[in-house]
């Protein structure tokens, strides 16, 4: 494994773009670290890796990474990535999204991309809010919590991101937190190696907006909460539902073989070119 110095030198656009724009203590940078270590660990060539993001705090990640990088529009990163993947099936494509990006405005692309099971590694950084625009409620804001647009408390149920991806047909689905960054890195590696759509949810509460509004303390306090309020799937199975309330369940939700889209399309090309039924 490369040293941190080497990783910084190899994978970050370190000369010009640092320090990054995120708030002090924001977990997005931690996810970024996990990504570069995963890529390094797997021994990928940088010329083989693309990163595509939407708009949001998380959406700024590609600026810092020395891959093919594309910062698209709010909610549509997966659709851009689908086009790129079909054009360049040989690329490893990592799609980084915020929870609003992936599941509010981008919810449709999320479910359809999972359904198509196209070979992308999607990372949703779930900070339970819209960070970039200053703390409005998102589809993952827990019920009853405050947000700038929910001054009387949020009344919506939150999306179970992993279950959603699973029901739609994703090949690999897992959740971890920025506290458990090594576990997270492992999931990212598995996602990258999986042929098919891989969804990794990285829980990383935004302390600047969500935390402050709900008086959850500093970045340090919220990091501690990730440690204390999370539990593995194995452990969760043994708990009664009441005790699971408010817990972050970590682990792999799905890991299965599903025919992958670009491969299936390749077969169509072969059929068409051999004069098959049109």
């Amino acid at each position: 494994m490369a040293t941190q110095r080497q990783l910084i030198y190899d994978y970050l656009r370190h000369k010009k773009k640092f320090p990054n724009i995120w708030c002090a203590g924001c977990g997005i940078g931690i996810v970024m670290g996990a990504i570069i270590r995963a890529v390094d660990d797997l021994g990928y060539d940088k010329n083989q890796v693309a990163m595509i993001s939407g708009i949001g705090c998380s959406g700024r990640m590609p600026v810092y990474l020395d891959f093919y990088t594309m910062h698209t529009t709010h909610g549509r990163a997966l659709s851009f990535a689908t086009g790129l993947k079909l054009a360049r099936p040989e690329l490893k494509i990592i799609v980084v999204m915020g929870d609003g990006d992936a599941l509010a405005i981008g919810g449709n692309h999320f479910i359809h991309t999972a359904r198509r099971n196209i070979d992308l590694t999607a990372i949703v950084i779930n900070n339970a809010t819209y960070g970039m625009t200053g703390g409005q409620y998102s589809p993952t804001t827990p019920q009853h919590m405050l947000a700038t647009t929910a001054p009387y408390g949020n009344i919506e149920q939150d999306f179970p991101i992993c279950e959603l991806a699973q029901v739609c047909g994703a090949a690999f689905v897992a959740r971890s937190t920025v506290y458990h960054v090594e576990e997270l890195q492992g999931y990212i590696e598995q996602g990258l190696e999986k042929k098919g759509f891989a969804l990794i949810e990285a829980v990383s509460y935004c302390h600047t907006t969500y935390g402050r509004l709900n008086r959850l303390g500093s970045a340090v306090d919220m990091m501690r909460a990730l440690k204390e309020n999370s539990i593995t799937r194995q452990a969760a199975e043994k708990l009664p539902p009441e005790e699971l309330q408010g817990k972050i369940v970590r682990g792999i939700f799905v890991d299965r073989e599903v025919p992958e889209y670009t491969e299936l399309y390749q077969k169509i090309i072969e059929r068409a070119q051999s004069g098959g039924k049109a």
Partner: protein
Amino acid sequence: MKKETTKPGIGRYEVRLAGKGGQGMILAGRILAEAVALYDGRNAVQTQDYGPEARGGASKSEVIISDGEIYYPKVMNADLLVCMSQEASDRYYYDLKRDGLLIIDSTNVDRSPTTRVVAVPITELAVKATGREITAAMVALGLICGLTKIVSEEALEKAIRSLVPKGTEELNVKAMHAGLEEAKRLLEAGLPISLPREL
């Protein structure tokens, strides 16, 4: 059709507060403007600029003060420029009026663009007065008040109390007083300061 005769720019006084995101410059501008407009009974318009790095990048706040109507809401040539960071000082000095007043926070600004400057260790004074860097903006407001009189002490204090986060009122007012005192000291020392011309 309406014909207007009001002369524009009469008594127009332009203030720019510049620093980094997180230094409270936008709140300071709002406090200054609200003090002038709501409690001193004159007119004020406040605008702001900031980057996407709401928490870190360059940020500035502008306040136009006048007894008449205010048309252009931005600084054309600043009468007063307060710079809380080196970058701000480098960048904004160019449109300070010839006889405008430049205040720099010497805690953060090493190289002043000119010698006609009031250099005050604003952040240092803040830490000294309240123990909290973040109150530097209030020290700056006190300083402005004391040096230029464009806002009254009472109005400024009222505005601070109504706009700072609940529970931090005393702390912030204390910082403002630290600024006021420093201003008094400076005025007594007779530093080269250009004060507002009319109004």
